[in-house]
C-alpha cells in the first residue's frame, strides 16, 4: 500500500514521489492503543472467567451463609398469628418483605438479605444470609451478560478488539523474535492447544 500524502510526498517540480505506507508503524499504534482500551474489560472477563469456570465447587457470585437457631415451637394455626408469633420469638421488630408456607409445617420469612425457614412443630430455624461477593459479583454479571441491551454490543466490540490486538500482536516485532522466527513457534503452540484438546475430547474416552 502506498500513500500519496505525507512528509516528503511532494517534491519540487512536477514529479511527486510516493512514500510507502508504514503499515508496521500503524500496526504497532493500533496494537498499543487498543491494548490500553481493553485492559479493563480483559481483567473483568479474565478474573470472572476463572471464577465461573468452577461453579461446581463454589458459588462465584454470592456468599451464602447458613446458621441454625432454636425457638419455642409455634402452635398457632392462622397464618397471621403464626407470622406474629415467629417474629416475636425471633426478636424481630421489622416486618418481613414476604412470607411463604411451602408446607403446613414450615414458615419462611423473607427480609432484605436474610431468609428464616422455621419448622413450626419443633421451632428449629435455619437462617440463610446471602451476600453478593464484592467486585466478583459485578464482574460475573458483566461476563455472563446479565445486563443485556447495550452491554451485548460493548461485549461484541470488546471481542472484536481482542481479535485486532491478537492479529496486530503477530506483527509488532520483526526478525528473530517476530512472526518469522520464535513468534511462529509460539503462535503455533498456542493454536495447537485448543486443536489437540478438542481432538482428545472427541476421540478419547
Amino acid at each position: 500500500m502506498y500513500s500519496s500524502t505525507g512528509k516528503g510526498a511532494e517534491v519540487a517540480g512536477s514529479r511527486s514521489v510516493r512514500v510507502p505506507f508504514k503499515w508496521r508503524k500503524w500496526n504497532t499504534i493500533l496494537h498499543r492503543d487498543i491494548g490500553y482500551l481493553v485492559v479493563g474489560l480483559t481483567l473483568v472477563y479474565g478474573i470472572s472467567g476463572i471464577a465461573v469456570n468452577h461453579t461446581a465447587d463454589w458459588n462465584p457470585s454470592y456468599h451464602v451463609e447458613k446458621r441454625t437457631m432454636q425457638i419455642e415451637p409455634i402452635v398457632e394455626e392462622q397464618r397471621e398469628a403464626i407470622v406474629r408469633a415467629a417474629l416475636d420469638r425471633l426478636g424481630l421488630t421489622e416486618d418481613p418483605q414476604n412470607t411463604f408456607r411451602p408446607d403446613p409445617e414450615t414458615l419462611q420469612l423473607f427480609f432484605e438479605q436474610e431468609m428464616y425457614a422455621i419448622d413450626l412443630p419443633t421451632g428449629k430455624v435455619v437462617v440463610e444470609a446471602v451476600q453478593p461477593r464484592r467486585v466478583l459479583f459485578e464482574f460475573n454479571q458483566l461476563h455472563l451478560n446479565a445486563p443485556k441491551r447495550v452491554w451485548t454490543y460493548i461485549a461484541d466490540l470488546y471481542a472484536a478488539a481482542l481479535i485486532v490486538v491478537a492479529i496486530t500482536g503477530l506483527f509488532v516485532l520483526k526478525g528473530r523474535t517476530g512472526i518469522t522466527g520464535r513468534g511462529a513457534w509460539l503462535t503455533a503452540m498456542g493454536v495447537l492447544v485448543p486443536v489437540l484438546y478438542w481432538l482428545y475430547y472427541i476421540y478419547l474416552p
Partner: protein
Amino acid sequence: MKHPVAVLLVVVLVVCSALAGSPKKYGKEITLKEPTRVSAILADPEKYNGKKVLVEGAVVDVCKKRGCWIRLASDKEFESIRFKVEDGVIVFPMEAKGKTARAEGVVSVKTYSVEDLVAQGKEHAKEQGTAFDPSTVKGPKTVVQINGEGAVVK
C-alpha cells in the same frame, strides 16, 4: 481533567444510587395486562398448557448457580410454581428472593418418569448444595412450570 478515573467513579456511583430500589426488568417486556392466579394454573394445568400467562407472587427461591429460574409463591397456601428461563438469556440475582415479581411466560405441563425425576433431583441437589434421596421419588410426576419470557421484580 487531572483524575479521569475518579470522575468516572463518581458518575458511576451517582447513576447506581439513582437506580437503586427501582423495579428491575428481566428479559422481554411484559405484554399481558391481566394476571392469572397461580392457584388457577395449578388447579387445571391442561387448560393453560401452551398458553401465555402473567403471574404475580413472592419470589421464594432462586437458582443459586445460574439464576436460571425463580419460584413464585401461589395465592394459595403451600403452592408455588417454577418460572424457568433459558440459561444465560435471563439471569435472576439471588437478591430477588423475598421480593415480589410479575412474570410472563408460557405454561408447560410435562409428565416425568421415575428415572427422569431421580436424575433431575440429583442435578437440583448438586446445584443447590443439598442432599437428595432417590427413594423419595414414588412414581411418575406431572410438572407444571412457566417457561419465562420476561419479568419485573420489585
